[in-house]
């Protein structure tokens, strides 16, 4: 155990951690957007697009992120589609996460009672207004636990990004490993992930407590 070495590594881990966080952030925001769109498509049963969303969700949910990344990063360039590593990572994460988030939103939507919809319609709200003011607020509270679980899951999945040659935390740890500092680098690795993911986990626990207001109508 060489504490000096571990301390010397902090700047390196800081830089790598920043990359991990950036990729995770954009990936998760994108997955929320994709997931929300897919859930709305399925909720309103828009023909054709609904089936498309269904197929996408099943494909993404039932395959590992690593396989998706391999295909994106090593397969597609051969077809003439060259995607840089960072974009690849974000696309991969969003592809996977979109399906999980869609499921989360769908659960929330289906938990909103039918009476709520009918009441909204009879007040003369349009479909979009109904979505914005009646369904969404209630659905969000229901789907928040699932969204938070998926977010944490996606943040953990970011650990595979090193296979598309991105200098993230795992990549750095592998590098230091080769130099023979496995204990120090692994310790730093554990601490880095704790520092990144634990606050997110705590934040979501707080949000879930706050969002429990919407128990009515179901």
């Amino acid at each position, binding site marked *: 155990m060489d504490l000096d070495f571990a301390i010397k590594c902090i700047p390196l881990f800081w830089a790598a951690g920043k990359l991990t966080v950036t990729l995770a952030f954009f990936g998760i925001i994108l997955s929320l957007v994709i997931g929300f769109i897919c859930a709305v498509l399925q909720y309103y049963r828009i023909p054709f697009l609904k089936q498309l969303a269904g197929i996408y969700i099943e494909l993404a949910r039932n395959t590992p992120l690593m396989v998706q990344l391999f295909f994106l990063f090593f397969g597609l360039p051969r077809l003439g589609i060259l995607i840089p590593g960072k974009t690849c990572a974000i696309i991969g994460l969003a592809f996977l996460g979109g399906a999980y988030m869609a499921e989360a939103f769908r659960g929330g939507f289906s938990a909103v009672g039918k009476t709520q919809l009918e009441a909204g319609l009879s007040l003369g709200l349009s479909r979009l207004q109904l979505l914005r003011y009646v369904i969404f607020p209630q659905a969000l509270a229901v789907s928040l636990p699932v969204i938070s679980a998926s977010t944490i899951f996606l943040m953990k999945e970011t650990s595979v990004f090193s296979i598309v040659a991105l200098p993230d935390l795992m990549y750095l740890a592998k590098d230091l490993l080769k130099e023979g500092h496995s204990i120090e680098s692994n310790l730093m690795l554990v601490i880095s*992930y704790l520092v990144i993911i634990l606050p997110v986990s705590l934040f979501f626990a707080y949000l879930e407590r706050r969002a429990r207001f919407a128990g009515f109508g179901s």
Partner: protein
Amino acid sequence: MARLMEGLWITVWISMLSVGLSVLFGIPFGLLMAAKTRVVAKLMRIYLEFIRVMPILVMLFLFYYSLSRVFGINLSAYFVSVLVFTIWGAAEMADLVRASVTSLPAHQWESGRALGLSSLQVSLFIIVPQAIRRLLPGVINLTTRMIKTTPFVFFINIPDLMKVGQQIVEVAGMRNHLASVWVYGFIFFIYFIICYPISLFSRYLEGRWQ
């Protein structure tokens, strides 16, 4: 193709073993978590939370590279992968067990006792059958997640489906320009074909039993 099947076999073998062990360890862990003893429940909670936030890949690294240094234990990559997946799976399983046990209304237990059944009889004939019903979809779900986690063993050099695929691409890539597209596309579909029926089955059970 034959080599891919070998890789697939390793993938399936590791995930099945890990799921089995996870269920085996997860049930007592979950009962401990549901137990009234504060200290034990707290300890289990810390264990679960740590597993929750720690990427599985990090744990693989920790056990594979550091354990041997610190304690001088040399573990094979296979052993480490099953160990890590079991530690993770048991935590998830424990949470499922806890949820299914605590979700059973207390009056089930009380009515059983009031009918004159011993507490062993109540556990065996009333609590366990109902808990299993609530548990099974979750366990099946865990199985698909385990299968989707196994590609991580790639990082500790186990020749699983991904590693074999990569090797094939390296060899065939010289001759066939599109080798990587086909091989990785094929692996994508293998995973899909394995996981999709399992997740359909889990959804079917959920629909039927709740």
